[in-house]
């Protein structure tokens, strides 16, 4: 229950139609695709508030602080980790009214926006002016503010790096209600938002992967890029990971292509499959390994890079599968502005499940692709359920994606065993499988990232020194502890 005085104050700030403690509304905010699996302990918020300006956000933070009420910012709410669902009740601050594009700076090729502008809208507006942003694999309804601060991979990382490297500057309301701006935006007088670093020690990534604990992003400047003359998706298929990987590694080392990822097994078709049945059927006709590549640039650049891709595919026993597809334009659209319609409900659940989707998401290196895939496959084949062909033909169900950074200095590898997350047999099997997988990965030097949905308490940890420092800073920013309390499980945290 929210104190009546708190609700009154919130209504004063945003207007009575934008603050409510109506249980019907609050309950709707207490669920996402992951919480129904009850892997954590979640609560309904006590009230929901929808600010439209930065100063309203500041005032709301002041109220939360005064009454020591938990405050949880909400972006698109599809972080697949239920990071925006209250653990201890309190106020959900739904940012959907903060959806203005503030500026597109055509000279600096940046856009400044409020957090709740969607990727689809931002892409469209930029493309109209001859620019583009690399889009995440997420549905394009995801909002820029939360995706750039909490998402990871995008479809052009080979050329531009991952999402976080596109943050130029941020405007944040800190937990004490004060306003912080970073990069050249920090200068209170100049109005220039085009430089991402400093002044001095660089705080630009303060909100990054902070799950709302460091404050609320109310504005963000992101980097865009001039549209190229040509955008050419070109996909190569391979039967074996031992063929696909060397082709991939060489392409990455040669620093060609704008986008590239290696999809193993089930993964790609899971995006559009409506049911588990449909996914299995598609898997059987899908190539085992796909290199989803995109080449962008001038006519000459594209011709050169395409030639290299074809040569390396050929040399490594692969084949190009996008040459004569009637629906080829779809690949271009997917690359330039991921279409939400590609995602089926099944795909969402697959992603949102506690291990049914990615069992791990590991910061890693290119030379770990083959060992990771083999570790996953071997463990699955030994498992009484996953290895049971009658139950779900495991051979097609394991999945992996590897996303390299520019030059392949590191890669993000994610993998899992796909099954419908509500299937009790699957849930049981994951509980057996995942801890074994984590151990097998540790043996080959891969340590899954802690911040993802599938990271459950106690399985593995983060270094205590790192956590101590993180806790120090969190405390310095929010000594009252109002921001999204409990979002990081104490077991992981300790």
């Amino acid at each position, binding site marked *: 229950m929210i104190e009546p005085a708190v609700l009154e104050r919130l209504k004063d700030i945003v207007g009575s139609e934008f603050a409510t403690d109506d249980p019907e509304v609050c309950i709707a905010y207490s669920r996402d695709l992951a919480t129904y699996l009850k892997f954590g302990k979640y609560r309904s918020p006590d009230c929901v508030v929808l600010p439209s300006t930065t100063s309203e956000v500041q005032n709301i933070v002041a109220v939360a602080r005064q009454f020591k009420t938990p405050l949880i910012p909400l972006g698109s709410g599809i972080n697949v980790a239920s990071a925006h669902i209250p653990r201890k009740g309190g106020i959900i601050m739904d940012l959907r009214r903060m959806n203005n594009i503030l500026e597109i700076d055509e*000279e*600096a090729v940046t856009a400044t926006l409020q957090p709740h502008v969607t990727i689809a809208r931002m892409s469209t507006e930029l493309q109209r002016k001859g620019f583009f942003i690399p889009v995440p694999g997420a549905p394009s309804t995801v909002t820029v503010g939360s995706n750039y601060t909490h998402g990871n991979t995008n479809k052009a990382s080979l050329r531009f790096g991952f999402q*976080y*490297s596109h943050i130029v500057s941020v405007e944040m309301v*800190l937990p004490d209600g004060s306003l912080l*701006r970073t990069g*050249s935006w*920090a*200068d*209170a*007088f*100049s109005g220039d938002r*085009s*430089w991402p*670093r*400093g*002044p*001095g*020690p*660089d*705080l630009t*990534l303060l909100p*990054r*992967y*902070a*799950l709302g604990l*460091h404050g609320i992003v109310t504005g963000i400047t992101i980097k865009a890029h001039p549209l*190229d003359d040509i955008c050419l998706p070109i996909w190569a298929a391979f039967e074996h990971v031992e063929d696909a990987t060397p082709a991939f590694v060489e392409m990455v*080392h*040669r620093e060609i292509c704008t986008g590239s990822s290696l999809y193993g097994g089930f993964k790609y078709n899971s995006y559009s499959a409506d049911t588990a049945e449909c996914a299995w059927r598609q898997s059987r006709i899908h190539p085992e390994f796909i290199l989803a590549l995109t080449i962008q*640039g*001038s006519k000459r*650049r594209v011709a*050169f890079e395409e030639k290299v891709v074809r040569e390396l595919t050929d040399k490594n026993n692969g084949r190009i599968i996008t040459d004569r597809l009637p629906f080829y334009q779809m690949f271009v659209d997917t690359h330039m502005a991921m279409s939400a319609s590609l995602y089926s409900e099944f795909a969402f659940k697959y992603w949102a499940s506690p291990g049914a989707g990615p069992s791990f998401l590991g*910061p*890693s*290196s290119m*030379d*770990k692709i083959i060992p990771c895939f083999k570790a996953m496959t071997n463990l699955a084949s030994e498992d009484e359920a996953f290895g049971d062909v009658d139950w779900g033909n495991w051979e097609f169900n394991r999945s992996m994606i590897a996303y390299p950074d520019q*030059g392949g200095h*590191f890669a*993000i590898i994610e993998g899992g065993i796909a099954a419908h997350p509500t299937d009790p047999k699957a849930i049981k099997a994951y509980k057996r499988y995942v801890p074994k997988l984590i151990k097998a990965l*540790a043996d080959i*030097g891969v*340590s*899954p*990232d*802690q*911040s993802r949905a599938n990271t459950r308490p106690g399985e*593995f*940890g*983060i*270094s205590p*020194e*790192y956590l101590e*420092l*993180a806790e120090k*800073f969190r405390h310095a*920013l929010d000594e009252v502890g109002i921001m999204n309390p409990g979002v*990081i499980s104490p077991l992981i945290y300790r």
Partner: protein
Amino acid sequence: MTNLDASLALSQRLDIEVSKERLSNYFTTTVEGTVSVSKPSSLEELMEILSENQRERIPFIPYAPGFEYIFQEVDSEFSMIVDVSNLDRIVDVDEDSRVASIEPGVTFESLQNAVGKKGLRVLTSVEVPKSSSVLWTYTELSPLYSWPRYGTEPVLTMNVLLPNGKLVKTGAGALPNSGKPYSPIGPPFTLLGRMWYGSQMTLGLPVRGYIKLKTAHESNIVRFFKFDDFLSLSKFLAALKRLRIGEEILAVTPLELGLILSDKADKIKTTSYPNWLLILVMRGYEEEVAYQKRDLLQEARKLGVKVLDEIEGQKNSAAKILKEIQSPTWMSRARTYQGGRFSISFIAEDKKIPDLIQLVSHLDNFSSFVLPVDAGRSHCNFAFHSRSEGRKQSIPDELKKIVPELIEHGAFFSRPFGFLSEMVYARNKPYHKLLKQFKQDLDPNNLLCRGRLGI
């Protein structure tokens, strides 16, 4: 016991190499004095010094090769420098991932030699002498140094020694079992991987860095373009950006070009040089560079810009430029040109650069180099070479007067050294307040680089 005696005694007690040096060898200070310089030879020794410093409350400043303290005044009470030059191990060169794991004492020269044998190269900062620390140059300067193709993050992850002597690993390094801790994307709170950049060592010392290496290509082509003014140059830059041509791009004024090309600072000829010369380096496989040359030619023709293989009247200028980039020497000449060089670096939108130049061009022997860091904005280095001994003292004071005007006209000092920090943070108060808070958490006794950045 004086501070100096205490610092000497501490290093001697810990059996760490120590010597007495003149303060002015390390700082641009007007104060006469002596400091103790401790040279730990291992990380363990360094950790020991840091924790003992904490116990005895001795303020100290770290030093690595070539690590300059620009505009850094220190008071006469200051007594201890911790010099990490002996932490100079190239711990590993991973050819598969093209990553080197290095300590802060490793110089550009030694790393370049080591990785060159493996067909790799180190991203150099064109103005930083080859004898400088790679890791600390990257963490301190790279936000301003950019390779158009590779962005501003040459360090992937690092191990940072906190002022209290504890070690924190960033990115994937903070996850256990990370055999190759190269990914900056790791556990939550990515800030902890980024805040050491530009921190002027106030928050901790990077003691190990995992840095990117690039392929050393055989095809390395230099092209030159002459411009009468910066605005036409910047239009051409925008076209290059769209075509993604150029691994290193540098624009220079005549004096700067003279300093780059001459062998001796007293033999500089500048008369035949254009107002602005744009230098562009393409690297890659032969076929790759070949199509880029054609793209470049086509674009230059469209914009009416002439493409030159060599600087007019300068034989071997292309080879000389490549050598300077691989192994920079030019800044050591620039420092001895006439009465010495003073420079300031900042970020500015390209369209504002001509106005900024107007504000300072009357100062002694003005020269500038400009590195385009991203669309429409560049890293500018404005340098002044004093005409006489007397002027040497007054140039910094004149600069102090001009900087506020530069800021007003759009210069953003993302690296606010010395007196700049006060001016910059006066306009960025909330940012500064937060920095002070973090500094307080990390270094409650304020021992590490006391006073720097006003935190």
